[in-house]
């Protein structure tokens, strides 16, 4: 049964050192505010799971929160490298990072298996790729009917899933729309979950087959307006493309990165403080 609480309280209660944490959102609705709060609270030894570990994980990795990364594509979309991720993998700074590496199809299927209560998923994938050589969570599997050679991937079952959504009602029912990625699967696969939302409303009034997380599948709902920045929330604000460009410079250098994190994250109380410190105005939504 979802409790509506502050983000600080939710992270304090639900994210523990050593946890496997899945923070999802495919470009859209990335839970950046929650990532910052995990950094503020100094969590360590996390196994971070994410299809596309972009800026949110670059920050967590650069601040030394993670010991392992389960992922499929780690870059700054449309800009280039994730410098903190690269520094961790290439030079072990600030600590070494173990990689469990998938393709998008493989990891998406692994989430589906987790959400389905199955220990693994089957896909017609990874043929000829070197990825299975380095990832023991990918194994060959033969179809019992046709003999076709397929791949099995171990299910993802996070301790905590963290996602951002547009809205929740007062009971904690969550409604998200637009690019929904694997968020529903991440929450349903996890033992606990935190959903940050743009706003709490009296009635969701969602369309018939909307993507809904019923309140009894969510552990904590936290109102955090702008909580996806620099990602976006369809219907609320646009992607801050300028920030993604700027991140390339901020993150390229260890000292500059640390200084920025000190000033905008560690030195602020909450997400509103972050937005002020970083001088962010949420971009209004463009109408196509």
């Amino acid at each position, binding site marked *: 049964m979802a409790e509506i609480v502050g983000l600080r309280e939710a992270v304090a209660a639900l994210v523990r050192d050593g946890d496997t944490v899945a923070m999802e959102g*495919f*470009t*859209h609705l990335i839970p950046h505010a929650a990532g910052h709060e995990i950094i503020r609270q100094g969590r360590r030894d996390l196994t971070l799971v994410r299809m*596309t570990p972009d800026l949110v994980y670059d920050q967590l990795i650069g601040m030394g929160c993670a010991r392992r990364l389960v992922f*499929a*594509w*780690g870059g700054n*979309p*449309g*800009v280039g490298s994730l410098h903190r*991720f*690269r520094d961790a*993998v*290439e030079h072990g700074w600030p600590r070494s990072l173990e990689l469990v*590496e*998938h*393709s*998008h*199809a493989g990891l*998406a*299927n692994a989430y*589906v298996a987790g959400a389905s209560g199955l220990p693994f998923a089957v*896909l*017609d994938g990874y*043929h*000829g*790729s*070197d*990825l299975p050589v*380095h990832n023991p969570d990918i194994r060959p599997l033969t179809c019992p009917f046709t003999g*076709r*050679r397929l791949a099995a991937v171990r299910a993802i079952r996070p301790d905590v899933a963290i996602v951002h959504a547009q809205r929740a009602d007062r009971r904690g029912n969550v409604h998200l729309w*637009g*690019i*929904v*990625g*694997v968020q*529903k*699967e991440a929450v349903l696969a996890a033992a606990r979950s935190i959903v940050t939302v743009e706003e709490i409303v009296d009635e969701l009034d969602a369309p018939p087959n909307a*993507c809904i997380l019923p309140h009894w599948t969510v552990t904590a709902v936290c109102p955090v307006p702008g909580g996806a920045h*620099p990602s*976006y929330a*369809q219907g609320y604000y646009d*992607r*801050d*493309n*300028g*920030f*993604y*460009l*700027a*991140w390339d*410079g901020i993150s390229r250098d260890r000292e500059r990165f640390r200084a*920025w994190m000190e000033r905008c994250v560690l030195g602020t109380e909450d997400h509103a403080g972050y937005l002020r410190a*970083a*001088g*962010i105005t949420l971009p209004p*939504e*463009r109408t*196509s």
Partner: protein
Amino acid sequence: MSLPWTPEEMMAIAAARLLPDGRTCFVGIGLPGTAANLARRLHAPDLVLIYESGPIGARPPVLPLSIGDGDLARTADTVVPTHEIFRYWLQNGRIDIGFLGTAQIDRFANLNTTVIGDYRSPRVRLPGAGGAPEIAAHAGETLVILRHRRRAFVARLDFVTTVGYLDGGDARERLGLRGRGPTRIVTDLCILEPEPESRELVVTSVHPGVAREDIEANTGWPVRFAPAVTTTPEPRPEELEALRELRARTEAAHGRPSGE
């Protein structure tokens, strides 16, 4: 009369021309997105763009910076969960053309987007596979677009992220992959295609003003040329105008660095 143009523009336009109207195209980030959206503005208004983030039938008004931009969702016929894109659409054989970029490519069109150097202690850590391995496996055919540089066109990949023709011949068929594999590699110098039997990439079309030596110097293996190499038709004014207009609107929309 033709306008002056850059090799980058030639590459985008040559790639866009390869996308027939009415087909379904799975669009990767970056250069493929430019070419696909350019094709939609030129000869292929009914090209169906599918992005792995979930949008099906997206008609973005500017080039998305990422493969999950709001424009894609707002203009799509529908937006489905990411796992569904990979299962019901790609793996189910409903994509005609997969369109990929890459960091490295070898002579059999295998791709590396994972690491330069050793996997466990790489010299350069690249972003990783993303959707590429399964796009290249299941799309009816695959197009690859990348800048023609010696460090990208390598004799031997450090890591095989995505299979093209493996070590050539019928190796791909023996692997049981559904799609035909990479049929055209478009660069800023030329177009390469797999030779029918060996599956080795050979140059089939050279962009105007490019010398064979330029291609040889920028390819990390002794690249061969097809018996009948053509010259890529140079960009037509309407192609250039559409591309430049698209890029100008994109820059205006995406803004400058913020939050530093």
